[in-house]
């Protein structure tokens, strides 16, 4: 089912490419096609998913919502563990394994997240990130029908993710389908606030979501390391590498002189003495 969908997507992409006019963004060569799918997803969301998710969020008691969220979150911990280990991240992998073990048993089949408050952070690794970690470039931006923003690499990894998702192997099929539906509603409900924010903040929602998503995806592959440093501490910012040629735009209003990046002559660096000019 997944591979057939993938073939359909690629075929449609091929068709759309032939009719594609000017493209601005090098990361989005099939923008015309993507915008079309985006609009389709929006329609489905507006008329089906969002109303249901809104009712779900407003009507269902919060402990039930938390339980549902934790249940499906627990299942993803198992696959995340496998991916962490595939990426050579032993500590994170073992944390996920432990999360899964503790929550499945003491957390009553994952309904309660005991491991999180106990100090085991949740990771959300998937096969796309594993491939990215090992150097597979993300490829162009792709909007998938119903599934939303993705990249070529992550779409190719989807069948793997599907297989690695424990719920995929749940029988009987009707229980599995109901579960998948509830999972989709739960995810949408958790994104209701964020989507309202994007509604207001974005001038062009398609672009805003695309650019935000691509950055987030890269950040996920790198596990939060910034463009300049992989350190997990706060530190010096290299404006040139972060902003390129625009780095000196909007310099301090004082006579248009940019703030010097090289440290001025200082005598005692031991104490945080103010820079005198």
């Amino acid at each position: 089912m997944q591979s057939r969908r993938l073939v359909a997507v690629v075929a449609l992409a091929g068709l759309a490419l032939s009719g594609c006019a000017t493209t601005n963004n090098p990361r989005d060569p099939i923008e015309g096609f993507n915008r079309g799918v985006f609009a389709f997803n929006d329609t489905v969301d507006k008329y089906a998913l969002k109303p249901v998710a809104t009712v779900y969020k407003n009507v269902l008691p919060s402990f039930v919502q938390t339980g549902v969220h934790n249940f499906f979150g627990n299942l993803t911990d198992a696959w995340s563990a496998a991916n962490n280990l595939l990426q050579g991240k032993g500590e994170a992998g073992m944390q996920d394994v432990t999360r899964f073990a503790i929550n499945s048993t003491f957390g009553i089949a994952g309904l309660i997240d005991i491991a999180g408050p106990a100090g085991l952070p949740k990771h959300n690794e998937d096969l796309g990130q594993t491939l990215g970690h090992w150097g597979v470039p993300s490829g162009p931006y792709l909007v998938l029908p119903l599934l939303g923003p993705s990249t070529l690499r992550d779409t190719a990894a989807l069948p793997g993710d599907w297989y690695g998702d424990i719920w995929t192997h749940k029988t009987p099929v009707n229980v599995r389908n109901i579960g998948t539906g509830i999972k989709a509603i739960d995810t949408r409900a958790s994104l209701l606030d964020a989507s309202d924010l994007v509604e207001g903040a974005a001038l062009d929602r398609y672009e805003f979501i695309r650019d935000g998503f691509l950055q987030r995806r890269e950040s996920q592959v790198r596990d939060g390391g910034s463009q300049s440093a992989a350190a997990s501490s706060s530190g010096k910012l290299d404006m040139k590498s972060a902003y390129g040629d625009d780095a000196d735009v909007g310099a301090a209003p004082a006579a248009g002189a940019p703030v010097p990046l090289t440290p001025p002559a200082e005598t005692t660096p031991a104490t945080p003495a103010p820079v005198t000019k």
Partner: protein
Amino acid sequence: MKPIATLIATVSFAFATHALAAAPVGNEAPDVLVKRISADVLDTAKSDKAIQAGDRQKIIGLVETKILPFVDTEKMTALAAGRFWRQATPAQQKRLSEEFRTLLVYTYSGALSQIKNDDKVEFKPLRADPADTDVEVRSQVNSSRGEPITLNYRLNKGPQGWKIFDINVLGAWLVETYKGNFSSEINKTGIDGLIGKLADRNKQLAGKPLAAPAK
């Protein structure tokens, strides 16, 4: 007692050399500043009943008084506009910054109204030379639900002290995300067109009620 002697020396040196009384916050390290603002805003948001109920004027007031003074919205706008900034007239630059600033106020207010009571912020230690003028401060919001949310800030030290000019939520930088929106709008309708679009959006947001915060 050496540290105290050095401290006294530093403070008197500072007072002696600054003819004008510089704003006291200008001497704070950037991560201390962000931590302070962050704690202040979170505490106020959690303890103020009107804000908890979603009183939009109050929330906007909170953003204006506790957050915006530490944000260099002009630099933010300039970076988002990129090469088009240099092509804009000073009047256009001024208007663009103002409209973008208003949009940011509405956006931050919307985000603040979504803060839940058990959200805690954890800051990564700062490892920068005290003479650096551009830094990135990293933090994350730990809530009881789901994975931690990355929240990073980029600050620049100007004549008025450290100011935030870019924010990263969940891996996406604000400036980078708006760059696309800005440039395609400018390509379509010019800088004035972008200003107009921002102004229209702000009028729209002014009329929309903020979502009530979750329990």
